[in-house]
Every structure is written in structure tokens, then in C-alpha cells.
């Protein structure tokens, strides 16, 4: 155990080093050769810590930034006078409804075609919302500005999953109200995921099905999107249904884990 007076002298020397000593303290240090030596010793420690340490490589940095951008919420809508935008808003609603109808028809056609050819291919019960260009454009500025989450996902890769009919729920109001799911933290195994979900308050859990305003958001039929996690280094959505959490990779809506919650 060090002498308490040593602690006081170290505090004096350390504060002197940082320029945080009072004039009286500075005079006290400068008049005491032992304290001056101590300032030098602590200065070596400070210099070592302040030296450039190992930095992350570009790949690590870019991955972290991409993951962070993918969790960005759409910005709050700009408040504008209603009369100035009423007509364009009405047009958006009409376009949105038309696009939703097209998406539903397309989804039904795809499902029917697949069912007749190879049977239903809902691997792991996961589906991806329609990504037709028309439906993307039809949701106007809100959807465009949700872009951080949108940009992280590839535009291809839909073919292996069944197109969901959930586009029917994508009316203009849903598109405007959608926000990114809460980020819950990092989980590398089942127990850590359970801990994260256990720590999620009931109010944080969306009472609604997975938001689907983003053109490439993932959905799991019948399951609730409870949040986003970093699962084994990969940004993923977590859906919960019937006591089971399904972890879906954000970038391509691929299921990467299922975790029983009980």
C-alpha cells in the first residue's frame, strides 16, 4: 500500500503535467526536486499513451461505418404548409396505392408460379418485400431519405426468397411513420442475444409487424421486429414469434440464426 502522501504528491505532479495546477501548486512542485522527477516519470507514461497506437485498417473502419449507417433512422419530415403540398401528397398517396397494388399482384403471381412449379419455397419462413423499382419510387421523399438502411443492402439477391405479400400494408401513412428498429447491442451467442432481448423493455418492442417502408426491409411473416443487433459481427434484425428469435442479416435478409428464448 502506498503512503497517502505519495498519492497527494502524485496528484500534484500529475496536475502540474497537465497544466491543471494552481500557481501555488506549481511553485510547490518547482521547489521540490523529487516532485520534479516525479513529473518527468509521469510524463513518460503520458507520452507513451499519447503516442499513436495501432489503428484499425480501412476494411475494419469501412465495415463499422457501413454498419452504423445502416441503422440510421429516416430524418424527421420537414414541416411545410399543407396547402403547398396537398396536391403532391395526394399524388403520392395515389401512386403509393397503385404501386402497392402492383406489388401485391406481382407477389401473388410469383408465389403462384413457384407453387405450381416447385412448391412453396419459404426457406426458414423468411421473405423479402418486393423491390420493384416502381414501388420504391412511389413512396416519395420519406422512403428516399430512409436511404442509409437501404443503401447497405444489395439490389440483387431476392431470387432465393419468396416475395411477400406484405407490400399490401405499405400505404403512404405507414411509409411516413416507419422508423428504424431500436439497436439493442452486440450478441455473439444465444445467451447474449437472450440477454439483449430480456433487457429490451416492453415499450421498446414494436407492437406492429416489421416495418416495410424501405424497399428492401426484411420481414418474417407473423413475427415482430424487436430490434437490430450486431450478431457475430454482422448487422442483423431480430424477429420474435412463438418464443423463438430469428436473426436476419440486414444486408440480404438471409436468416443466420434462430434462438429459442425460453
Amino acid at each position, binding site marked *: 500500500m502506498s503512503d497517502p502522501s505519495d498519492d497527494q504528491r502524485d496528484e500534484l505532479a500529475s496536475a502540474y503535467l497537465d497544466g491543471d495546477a494552481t500557481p501555488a501548486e506549481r511553485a510547490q512542485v518547482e521547489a521540490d526536486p523529487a516532485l520534479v522527477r516525479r513529473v518527468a516519470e509521469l510524463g*513518460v507514461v503520458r507520452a507513451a499513451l499519447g503516442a499513436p497506437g495501432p489503428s484499425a485498417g480501412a476494411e475494419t473502419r469501412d465495415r463499422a461505418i457501413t454498419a452504423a449507417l445502416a441503422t440510421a433512422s429516416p430524418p424527421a419530415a420537414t414541416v411545410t404548409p399543407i396547402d403547398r403540398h396537398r396536391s403532391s401528397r395526394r399524388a403520392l398517396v395515389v401512386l403509393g396505392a397503385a404501386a402497392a397494388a402492383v406489388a401485391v399482384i406481382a407477389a401473388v403471381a410469383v408465389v403462384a408460379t413457384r407453387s405450381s412449379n416447385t412448391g412453396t419455397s419459404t426457406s426458414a419462413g423468411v421473405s423479402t418485400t418486393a423491390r420493384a423499382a416502381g414501388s420504391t419510387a412511389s413512396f416519395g421523399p420519406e422512403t428516399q431519405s430512409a436511404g442509409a438502411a437501404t443503401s447497405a443492402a444489395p439490389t440483387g439477391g431476392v431470387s432465393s426468397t419468396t416475395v411477400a405479400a406484405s407490400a399490401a400494408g405499405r400505404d403512404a401513412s405507414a411509409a411516413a411513420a416507419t422508423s428504424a428498429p431500436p439497436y439493442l447491442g452486440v450478441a455473439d451467442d444465444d445467451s447474449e442475444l437472450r440477454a439483449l432481448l430480456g433487457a429490451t423493455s416492453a415499450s421498446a418492442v414494436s407492437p406492429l409487424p416489421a416495418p416495410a417502408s424501405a424497399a428492401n426491409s426484411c420481414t418474417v411473416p407473423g413475427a415482430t421486429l424487436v430490434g437490430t443487433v450486431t450478431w457475430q459481427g454482422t448487422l442483423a434484425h431480430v424477429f420474435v414469434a412463438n418464443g423463438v428469435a430469428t436473426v436476419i442479416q440486414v444486408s440480404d435478409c438471409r436468416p443466420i440464426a434462430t434462438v429459442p428464448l425460453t
Partner: protein
Amino acid sequence: LGRNSPPTETQATARYPEPIDAAADAELVVAAQGGDEAALDALLRAHYDRVYALCRRITGNDADAADAAQDALISIVRGLPRFDGRSSFATWVYRVTSNACLDELRRRRRRAVPGLPDHEGSEPTDPTVPLDTTVTDRFTLDEALAGLPEDYRLAVVLRDVADLDYAEIASVLDIPPGTVRSRIARGRAALAASLGGNRASPPRRPTPQP
């Protein structure tokens, strides 16, 4: 990322992070809060090196630092709409980062396998080796930092790595400036003892200050 695919390129180079430009930060923050994705990207890139450096010193290894830094960036993005500018953006970033690093340390403790040696509580190095020689060895420095109590480590790293002043550290850690001063002093003294055998004694926590 991280534990599952260690970022081997991390060891490649060491460099000083770019100086903080508070005015540029403020402009980017406003733009990013308004939905400008390019501004948000630029903001994250401007601060990533410091965030990583802080996490690297606090967690003591590359993989955990990469995980914690990514988690910090995600928290920054999620919290940005609520950032009100009462502190500087950089100070807020350090607060978020410190919390992310502490979370990572907690996760690491949960993962720790009983019976295996941990990072914590490393032995002091050979007291006959000059301090200025041993401190150049980053593994020795990592071990010495790992031997510090977390509250000392955070204070010292925020001062000497992030270059925050005492008031800023007090704001980040939500403790009085006097406590910051004593934690930094005790942390540095413990590091000096650990690295060079000076007055080798286990670090003691400061007495609470009002």
C-alpha cells in the same frame, strides 16, 4: 468482425488521428440531423480513428476494440437525432464511445472461461528495465493498462489518448473534476509502477469526493 474474424490489418499502421475541427463537426452534425447521409458518413469517418484509438486502449486488444468502435458508431448514429449541442460533438462522441467500451468489457467478462488467465491483474515488469524502454512496447503498455481499475483506465485514456481536459472528462464520465484529477494521477502512478517498477504498489481507488 472482431472476435470471429480478427481484423488483421489493424496491426498494419499507427497514426495520429486528425485534429478535431469543431466548426466542421457542427456543420456536419446539422446536415446529418437533417438526413444528409453524406454528412453522416463524413462525420463518422472524421471521428473513427479517435473512437478506435480510445477503444483500443480501453479494451486492450484489436478485436474487442473493433467491436466496441463499431458499436459506438452505431450508438452515435442512433443517438444523433437527440444530440442537442450542449457539449461539443467530440465530447459527446467520447461519452458514447466510453460506454460502448465498458459494455464490451462487460461482455468480455461474461465470456471469460473460469480457470484461464485474464487480462486483468498483470504483474509489474522488471524494475531494472528503464521506464522509457518498456513503455515503447505496446504489449507491455496494454498489459499495464489492463491491470488498472476501469475507472482509472478510462480517466487516463480520455486524458492522454483523447486529449480531453479535466472538465471534459468530468462531463464524459459524469464525475466531479476533482475526482478526475485524482483518478488520472493514481492511474498514471500505477502505470509508472507497472511499467518501470517505480514504487510498485497496487492501485487504490480514490476516496469519493463531493
